């Protein structure tokens, strides 16, 4: 924990507040700082990109090819800078920031270094500001979580309190970045905490309100995206429109996640040095962005939407100023650009690209609807720009629901970003269809898959549960998923050489990964001492396996451990008791016990 002058304050300055009150005050402080940081981040990205754009335009007056040269190379330069800094100084600032925040929250008791947050700021500004096609929300979240966690560390709070400050910072960041306080709250609950408790709510709401107020004071009251859609909508009719949008978004969202993960895997395998990858990605990005710029230029005003965040093009789409080809081109090229940028290891988030893609997709479908109407005349549509605007809105929500997989946040965030309540029911319908489809097509949500790809695992703790009821939780909330296993077809000695992290006991699996038993470390050492050469599987044949299922309550599991007199038990699938999911050890239960008793949050 950081030692500082604050830790040496005279007693009278700290004695006034109880622990809970101090936590609330720190939440307020975190709200202010996070709000400021998020707004500053927004302004600096926006400013840098606009400067770049105007610089390129003024250079164009001298020689026409200056413009493509500057815009084409800027992302590569940004990528190069970011790649070098990431490699040398701040490996934690890669990617979206939400996975990093999650892993810090679950694995490191919410301790995030302020440095990481600062680097996030710098790298995000350089990378996204120079035109790479990623969003600013993920980095904002990480940055603000780092600030909140740092506040907790400086003021010498207990570990649990520092951990409780992470969601506070995260929510404040989202609230300020999107000017969307409600969805900030639900996003934290849906993405990070996985459980809802009014105890955690207090600090989060206060920080969110303050951060949103800060952002409104500086940036003004306007919503992020302005939409002009009439309030009097024929809801039942729009429910039908939501169905194709939901279906398309579900499938395309799935495709997006899959191809993102695949590309990222390929890049990881490639032999290119790590620091050069973002630059290569940036180079490709420049070409794609220019292609989009010139191609859309053929159909009217050229769109810079493929570069950077691209909300300008989205606003145009809302007004129905874009032709369908332009939307199609922007959609496809932006998708490639985002995948390349993220996979090549840049620093930026996936929120706004998702919204952008969804908006374009919705626009395309809306256009299809209008032209269908013109040809057949079956529907009785309102004006064209109304239809397309509403479809853009629905598409944004639906794609967000299918990629980020927060069904409730996806509703609120669209509602708050556009301040348009009239379409809430069709929005719900579209979001639920695409969410359902996507969650059935791919079980693991995006951020968790990204973490898994990096070999990180969340040590979930039911952090905000009260003292009485934690024992009723299922084992799956506290068990260790990445259990160290040993192979049953080998001898004890062979296995001991293979084991890198020493544990008390190991689940034993056969060649196909199926559970055959449990063996203790000391047993294997005894076998080695007597140079027993039989494979473990034969030794274990006679033993009964004491296993648990993920749905067993912690209380029942503890009872089993006591009754059977073992220190750990493998957790197996309910359907198939040979399929190993993880292991439950006394350590897991002890860790849980301590979190529960330390009166978390307020």
């Amino acid at each position, binding site marked *: 924990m950081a030692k500082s002058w604050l830790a040496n304050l005279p007693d009278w300055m700290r004695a006034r507040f109880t622990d809970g009150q101090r936590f609330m005050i720190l939440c307020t402080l975190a709200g202010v700082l996070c709000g400021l940081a998020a707004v500053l981040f927004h302004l600096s990205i926006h400013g840098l990109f606009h400067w770049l754009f105007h610089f390129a335009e003024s250079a164009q007056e001298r020689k026409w090819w200056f413009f493509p040269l500057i815009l084409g190379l800027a992302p590569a330069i940004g990528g190069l800078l970011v790649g070098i800094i990431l490699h040398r100084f701040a490996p934690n600032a890669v990617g979206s920031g939400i996975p990093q925040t999650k892993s810090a929250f679950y694995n490191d008791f919410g301790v995030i270094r302020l440095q990481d947050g600062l680097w996030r700021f710098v790298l995000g500004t350089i990378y996204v500001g120079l035109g790479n096609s990623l969003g600013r929300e993920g980095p904002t979240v990480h940055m603000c979580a780092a600030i909140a966690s740092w506040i907790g560390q400086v003021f010498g709070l207990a570990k649990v309190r520092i951990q409780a400050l992470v969601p506070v910072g995260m929510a404040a960041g989202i609230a300020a970045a999107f000017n969307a306080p409600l969805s900030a709250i639900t996003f934290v609950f*849906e993405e990070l905490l996985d459980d809802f408790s009014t105890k955690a709510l207090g600090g989060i709401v206060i920080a969110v309100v303050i951060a949103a107020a800060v952002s409104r004071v500086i940036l003004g009251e306007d919503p992020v995206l302005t939409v002009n859609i009439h309030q009097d909508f024929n809801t039942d009719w729009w429910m039908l429109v939501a169905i194709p949008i939901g279906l398309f978004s579900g499938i395309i969202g799935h495709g997006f996640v899959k191809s993102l993960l695949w590309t990222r895997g390929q890049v990881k395998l490639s032999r290119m040095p790590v620091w050069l990858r973002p630059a290569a990605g940036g180079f490709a990005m420049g070409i794609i962005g220019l292609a989009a710029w010139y191609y859309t230029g053929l159909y009217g005003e050229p769109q810079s939407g493929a570069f950077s965040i691209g909300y300008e093009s989205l606003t145009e789409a809302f007004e129905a100023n874009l032709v369908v080809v332009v939307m199609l081109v922007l959609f496809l090229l932006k998708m490639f650009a985002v995948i390349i940028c993220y996979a090549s290891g840049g620093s930026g988030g996936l929120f706004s690209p998702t919204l952008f893609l969804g908006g374009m997709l919705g626009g395309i479908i809306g256009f299809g609807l209008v032209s269908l109407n013109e040809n057949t005349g079956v529907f009785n549509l309102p004006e064209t720009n109304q239809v397309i605007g509403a479809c853009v809105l629905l598409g944004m929500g639906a794609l967000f629901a299918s990629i980020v997989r927060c069904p409730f946040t996806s509703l609120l965030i669209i509602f708050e970003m556009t301040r348009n309540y009239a379409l809430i029911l069709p929005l719900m319908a579209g979001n*639920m269809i695409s969410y359902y489809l996507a969650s059935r097509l791919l079980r693991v949500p995006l951020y*968790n*898959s990204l973490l898994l790809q990096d070999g990180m695992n969340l040590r979930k703790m039911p952090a905000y549960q009260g003292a009485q009821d934690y024992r009723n939780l299922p084992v799956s909330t506290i068990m260790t998923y990445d259990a160290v296993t040993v192979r049953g077809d080998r001898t004890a000695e062979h296995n001991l050489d293979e084991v890198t992290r020493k544990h008390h006991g190991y689940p034993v699996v056969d060649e196909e990964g199926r559970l055959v038993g449990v063996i203790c470390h000391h047993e294997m050492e005894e076998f080695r001492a007597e140079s027993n050469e039989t494979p473990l599987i034969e030794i274990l044949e006679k033993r009964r396996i004491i296993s648990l299922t993920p749905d067993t309550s912690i209380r029942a599991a503890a009872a089993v451990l006591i009754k059977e007199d073992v220190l750990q038990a493998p957790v197996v699938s309910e359907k198939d008791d040979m399929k190993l999911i993880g292991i439950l050890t006394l350590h897991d239960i002890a860790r849980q016990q301590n979190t529960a008793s330390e009166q978390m949050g307020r």
Partner: protein
Amino acid sequence: MAATESNATPEEEQTDWRRALFSADAWRGYLVVFIGSIFAGLGALYFVGVEIFAGRVMRDWHNDQPWLSFVVMPSFLILIIFLRDKYFCGTDGTGIPQTIAALKLRESKVRDQVLSLKIAVGKLILTTLGLLAFLSIGREGPSVQLGACFMRCANRFATFPAHLVQRGLILGGGAAGIAAAFNAPVAGVVFAMEEIGRRFDKENMGTLVRTVLVACVVCVAVVGNYYFYGDLDHGREPLQFTTFNQWLIVPIIAVIGGFLGGGFSRTLLACIPYVTRAIRKNFVITAGIIGLLCATLAFATQGATLGSGYGEARALLLEGSPGFAETLPADQQDRLELARERVTPFYFLWRAIASFLVLLTAIPGGLFDPSFSIGAGLGHTLFPCFEWSGATMQAVILLFIVAYFSGVVQSPMTSFIILLEMTGCVMFALPLALTAMLAYEVSRLICRTALYEALALNFLRVMCVDDCEEPAK
């Protein structure tokens, strides 16, 4: 859960989504949820209809014959309590504590008793009687329990493993009840998480939102898309706080509202055991006395405490939005005018007493509408104290509603989201959120356990002790 899923091989993943999307079982499951939620929506819709009917016809009768309430109220109360104890044991109270209790019960057999079709029918009949008697009850509690009952019973026809889905279904039904009752889908979902489930479970989110969606669509299809109190921002600058002084009244209102709301809950919880005992002893006399008290109150206030209080609250709120009020049909405007005339400076007190008396008897009926009305009355009465800040009366009333309501039920998120959805003033979200949160904190100092949770615990205790549910033996 990440690693669990990562263990699944690609083939398993594929069969999984094929099964989920194409198998007959899965579709039967969807159908069941669909039908359950349609019924949940219809149930809520029915109550809306009854209330509208009562608000028109009964109001006119009572205006013509003020003595009517002296006959109707005691007799209906006695009848309701008689029916409740004789035939529909388990329908007592607002219905929300019962739903919470149902989630807490471990054995599904007892759960069947709390959320059965019989209970649903009882709830329907008894709440209808209560609304017709023009007692000060809301309809959201019964809607919640109805929704939960229907969803729970729909599960019988599907082949889901009960323990996996029941929580989601009950939550979904409850959410649909709130959402359809007030045309507030988001608030319904939040309410299910915050109040009924007391925890955020992401697995059930899908079922929850789907149920709410269908129920809301049913309602919208019948009565059209509307804001419960009216679109306050219609044709004018959106309501928002701009000056520091205006923000300054937020904590003051939160403290007052939270204090009064918490006090209401606490007094209610303290008094309920006595009344329950008295009802056990002799329900005719107890219910008769309470009914007469309600009637006297209604008579003394010229009918201000009759009904749920929706009309009064709406009249007070719409006073600040003449732009919207003009768009209403003429007869509604007249009714608003009449309702506005009924509001006296002590309206909030009379309404609070009326609501209190009815809640004591634990007849089926909710407290949302009366509480909103109390909050609106408070805001109206105390507005002169806040005039210095430059906030409009409407803003003060809204803040008082949210503060008082959040103080009574102690679910801050629900209270401000539901108000946003009922009034459509999205720019006013921040003051509302802050007020709700602060009022909740204040209320917790006064009343330790949230009202619904305490009632649910009471209910659980009763369920375990006596077996009134076995009349056959």
